């Protein structure tokens, strides 16, 4: 299983929010990204599950402080 990366998250966010100019950094969080609202968060979570082949709860991901922590969390689930 290929470890989940911030680039994977960026691809998902661009696809779900339909904004190909979104650029994510580990220090950023959903609050920094226009279009990443609670409904899209659910859809992004579903895509993360499909791509990383793990089960995650949208609420758990929402509690993480930034995207760096989110990627680490998903990778830990993959392990």
């Amino acid at each position, binding site marked *: 299983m290929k470890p989940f990366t911030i680039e994977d998250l960026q691809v998902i966010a661009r696809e779900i*929010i*339909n*904004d190909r100019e979104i*650029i994510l950094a580990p220090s*950023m969080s959903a*609050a*920094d*990204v*226009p*279009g*990443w*609202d*609670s*409904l*899209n968060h*659910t*859809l992004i979570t*579903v895509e993360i599950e*499909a791509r990383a082949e793990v089960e995650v*709860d*949208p*609420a758990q991901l*929402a509690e993480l402080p930034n995207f760096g922590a989110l990627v680490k969390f998903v990778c830990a689930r993959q392990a």
Partner: protein
Amino acid sequence: MTSPALLPAAALDGTVLRHWNKGARRDLTGRAFWSCVTQLADWLEARTPPDAFVLVIGHSRPEMMAMFLAIAASGRLGAFFPPSSPIQDEQHYFEQQRHALSAINPTVICAMEHAVAETVRLIDPTLAERVLEVPDVAIVPEIGEPRALAAFRTRLASNEPLFVQHSSGTTGIKKAVAISGRMLTAQFAAYWPLVRAEAGEERLRIATWLPLYHDMGLIASFLLPILGGDCISIVDPFEWISDPGAFFRLVEADDCNVCWMPNFAFRHFVRLQRTLKPVRLDSVRLWVDCSEPCRWLDARAFEAAFVDWGVRPRSVLGCYAMAETVFAVSQCPGDERRALSVPPIVPPGTPIIFTEARVLHDDGEVTPLPGHKAVLSSGRVVPGLQVSTWHDEVCLPEGSYGEIGITGDCLFPGYRGRDAADSNIGSDGVFRTGDLGVVLDGHVYIFGRLKEIIIVNGKNIFAGDVEAALGQVVGLRKGRIVVFGVESDMTGSEELIVVAEQDPASSASMTETRSAVSRLVSESFLVKPRDVRIVEDRWLIKSTSGKISRDENRRRYLDQFRSPQA
């Protein structure tokens, strides 16, 4: 059509409430529920003066619903107030809530959970002594008719305010609509027979995830079913957001037959469809699309996406509703479903037949003309209300596009604390809604607004409020900011767009400025901007009056950033 029975005795020993929490269900009979209301009314009467104004804050569950009715049954005046949202940061949330609570000035605040009580005390320590933590109730079923039910029945016959609905303000709660028992029963008598006829069943089984502090959740999905002795299956809105599939599982398990949802929720389910575990949705006879512009394409897309799950063709029907008329102004019958394909710009006062607009039908033309929007019919006006259209002070003939005016039985007399004139009610008794639309062949279509209000996922946002708030963001040029809405096929709602000029004197990077704008809008207004564009000096277009033009800049934004070539 006969008037439906009000608070029927037969409902006492049937199930009236099914509460879902993380997959587990708790059922309450009418007797258990109303006995809970009695116990909470006794508790409240011992702690508040008879003229108390009581706010209820908490998560959707039977005890909170019982508390609301206990306030009414005990002769007090009550209102729901939203709990904190996970997407707001504490500082902004506290600031807004302090402002809103100060404006409302409740006598007491009933907190349904300890954590909610703690939060309110932190928001404003001066409110601490007004906070009442509602205790857990061990329900003792009463013999005969529960006392609270009898008291509530008496209050339904009164013109005195029974409860208050707050309009969804942006930076604070702006307007309060007091609903009397007579207004509520008039709405019940007018609307409920239409819903029952559409469902084809005498006893309704309502499925809801809607917040109780919004009229669709409060009236259509709670109070009207309670008056009718129907059954409500409910899940908290925060649970719906994090697990939308749970709602469909609730519908299947409880064999629900009616459901109200805002338009964006239909679109959201379409986007989620391939990820949800299939369930059977055959039981639902009526999906009501309400609370923001109803879109023909989303109604049909929902039916198509879930046809294999049992969603019936033509079961998604439009409704036009507002707190000022208690709830429904109009409702579309299933055998008359249609839409209006309208050009992007129709000047108010224009007879719709003089435009390229045309009616779409499921059995005929279904595709709107290129560039048009397809507006789902909100149906026929409910009995007892009258709808007219206006351009300035002129009442227009049917078929003309204009501001919607309303008169009738369950219309409010004015916002709480304001007179009729200050509530957009003219000396002729017509309430001018600020919504723009047309009545054509007896069907109401709503597709515009007088003021620049952006409706994002059911929440009303005033563009001017957002622009004013963004004036504090470092990196933006003061006064060179524009906010507008763009209808979205992706979300089934409007998207909030911010375009602002960069302050050349600022050292903030574009990424930092975008983040700051995104954070401020979501924390202050509880919606996320869909796009934030930081543009160069003098990009924004001014109108001939020297103001930043929303329409011109919207067009420029769409051409430059959202056209297929962009």
